[in-house]
């Protein structure tokens, strides 16, 4: 399944001083995938667009902190 959140697993040494963070995540925002925006893409209603920060559904990719994620369950 396509996602704009990616993970990698850094090397963990047996001699690291702190408890390891085993999974690191990073964002690959939708602007990386589209190239020049094609015509006639789906839009939000004007009211929704003003609230979300984009008219185009394809670019909507909200970010929530781990704290918010824990309280919400999902992020979309």
């Amino acid at each position, binding site marked *: 399944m396509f996602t704009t959140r990616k993970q990698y697993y850094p090397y963990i040494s047996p001699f690291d001083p702190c408890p390891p963070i085993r999974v690191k995540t990073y*964002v690959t*925002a*939708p*602007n990386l995938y*589209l*190239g*020049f*925006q094609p015509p006639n893409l789906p839009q939000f209603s004007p009211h929704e667009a*003003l*609230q*979300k*920060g*984009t008219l*185009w559904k394809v*670019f*909507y*990719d*909200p*970010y*929530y*902190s*781990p*704290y*918010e994620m824990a309280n919400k369950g999902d992020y979309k």
Partner: protein
Amino acid sequence: MWIYEKKLQYPVRVSTCNPKLAKYLIEQYGGADGELAAALRYLNQRYSIPDKVIGLLTDIGTEEFAHLEMIATMVYKLTKDATLEQLKEAGLDAHYVNHDRALFYNNAAGVPWTAAYIQAKGDPIADLYEDIAAEEKARATYQWIINMSDDPDLNDGLRFLREREIVHAQRFREAVEILKEERDRKKIF
């Protein structure tokens, strides 16, 4: 010239009295990848770039000032009523000694803004690639601030600002495509 509309681009709400958040937010006010740097970078670069993309730099540069105003409002709300004890706790005591509760263009570590943060190389591709990088860095900064904040209303405004960075990066990428002039051409290599 500009026409000023006396309202924010997106409503700013702050629900918790936590001046520490102001210390983080100031990164987007006077930091290297903040809104001031963005606005000044684009509005300056536009004089020496092909006609086709001048309007884009004007539009985005102008919008960055609207973002700057939102950040300023957030910082102001978080500091205007803070006691000296709270400012000390938030690590804003040095700021207070220099500025009282006034806003200032410095980053989260107190380093004052400098024009050395921005560039105008006069080469359209070099400048647009810098702009794309600036937008991605601003997006990342918003993520790190959201991670540090537990104020849901503040985060709502920050999410809006971060979404705009995604759209700006998209438009700058399209500007590069326009300047490559290969967009509608049949590709025969």
